[in-house]
C-alpha cells in the first residue's frame, strides 16, 4: 500500500506491506535505526515516537494508521544541526547508560513538554511511566527532563 505522511519535518511517500507496523516502516522501510525494537508488545516503550505530538508505540501501531499524520522520531529531534534541549540535557547529565531506552524516553518526554512546558517531577514520572530503563534507576533521566522545562 502507498503511504504519505510527514516525517521529521519533511513530506514522506513510501510503499509498505499491509502488515507492517510503524516500527517496521521506520527501521526496515526507511532505514531510520534510532527507534528501537524492545518487547514488541507495547510494554517497554523503547519504540516510542510522536504522532501529531502524542507518543505512540511504533511496534503496535499499523503503518497505515500514520497516513497523513506528522511523525517525529529521535532523528528528528535535532534541527539544522542543533540538538534539542532534551538531547543536550541528557548528554550533560549522563542520563543514559546502555542507551537502548533513550530514544523512546526522549520522545515520551518531548510529548510531555509540548503539552506541558513546565511539568512537576510527578508529571514527568507519570509521562515516563511507560518507558522502562533497566540501567539508570531513572533519577538522572527525570532530572534531565526537569532541567529542560521543569519546576522543582
Amino acid at each position, binding site marked *: 500500500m502507498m503511504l504519505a505522511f510527514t516525517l521529521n519535518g519533511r513530506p514522506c511517500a513510501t510503499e509498505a506491506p499491509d502488515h507492517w507496523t510503524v516500527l517496521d516502516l521506520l527501521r526496515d522501510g526507511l532505514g531510520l535505526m534510532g527507534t528501537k525494537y524492545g518487547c514488541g508488545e507495547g510494554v517497554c516503550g523503547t519504540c516510542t515516537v510522536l504522532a501529531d505530538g502524542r507518543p505512540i508505540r511504533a511496534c503496535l501501531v*499499523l503503518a497505515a494508521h500514520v497516513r497523513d499524520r506528522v511523525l517525529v522520531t529521535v532523528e528528528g529531534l535535532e534541527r539544522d544541526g542543533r540538538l534539542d534541549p532534551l538531547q543536550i540535557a541528557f548528554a550533560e547529565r549522563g542520563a543514559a547508560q546502555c542507551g537502548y531506552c533513550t530514544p523512546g524516553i526522549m520522545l515520551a518526554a518531548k510529548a510531555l513538554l509540548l503539552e506541558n512546558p513546565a511539568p512537576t517531577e510527578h508529571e514527568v514520572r507519570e509521562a515516563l511511566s*511507560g518507558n522502562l530503563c533497566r540501567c539508570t534507576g531513572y533519577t538522572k533521566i527525570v532530572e534531565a527532563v526537569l532541567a529542560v522545562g521543569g519546576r522543582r
Partner: protein
Amino acid sequence: MRLHPFRLLEPESMKDAIDALGGLDGEARLVAGGTALVAMIRLGLVKPDRLVSLHRVPALNRIAVEAGSLVLGAMATHADIERSRVVRDGWPLLAEAAHRVATPAIRASGTIGGNLAYAEAASDPAPALLCLDAEVRVAGPGRERVVPLARFFRGFYEAALEPGEIVTAVRIPPAPAGARGGYVKYTSRSAEDKPLVGVAALVALDAVGRCSEARIAIGGAAPTPIRAAGAERALRGEALTDAAVRAAAEATAGEVDPLSDLMGSASYRREMVRVWVRRLLITLRDGTK
C-alpha cells in the same frame, strides 16, 4: 520481528466496514487502535487473514453532547477522553478512569470502542461507564441496536457482539444531580499495569446526608467488569456512616468472583475489593477527593 501477514482493508463507511468484516474468505478482525489486537497477533494468539480498519470511517472519534447525554464515537481514544473539556466538566468520573489506562502512549492509540469490545475484565473505563449507566451502540449486517453496558459483557474476554457487528459509539446519560464519583485502581506490580482491582463508585446524598443514589462497579475481580447490585441496594437510603461503608465493602467483596493469576490470588483480590470500596466511599463521603 514481523507480524504474521494479513491483508488490511480500510473501508470509508460503516456499511463498507460491516461488509468487509462479513466476507467469507478466512478470518477477519476489526482493528481500531491496535493496542490489544496487534500485541495478540505478535504473540501468535490470533492469526487473522484480514484486518478491517476503522480509521477511515468518518467522525468515529467524535466526543459530543447530544440531548444532554455524552456520546463517544467508538474511535475516541483514552487520551482524547481524558483531555476533553466536555467530559471533564460533565462526566469527571470517566475522565479520571480514562487517565488511568496504561501509559500515555497506549492512551493515545487505544480507543473506547476497542476497550469495550475486547471485554477485558480489568478494563479501567468499564467500571466508570457501568456506574454512569452507559449504553453501547452497535451496527451489524442489516441492523443497529443499543445494548446497556451492564448486558454487554457476556464472559471472560467475550462481548455481546454477533458476528459482523461493530461498536459504533457509547452513550452516557447525565450523572444524577449532585452526584460525586471516583475511580481507584490498585495494581500489584507497577503503576501502569492493569488493575488487580479497579473500583468505581458514584453517590448522591440528599439534604440529610442519605444516599439518594449509590452505584459501585468493579473491574478485575470477576470474569467481566460488574456492578455490585447488592451493595448498592444496601446503601440507598442510608447515610454513609463508617458502619454502612464497611457493610457495603463487605457486600461487594461477596459479589465479586475473582480469579487467581500472576498479579494476585483470588482471596487477595477479594480482600482488595473490600479495602478499596471502603476507602473510595469514605473519600467520596468526606469530599477529600
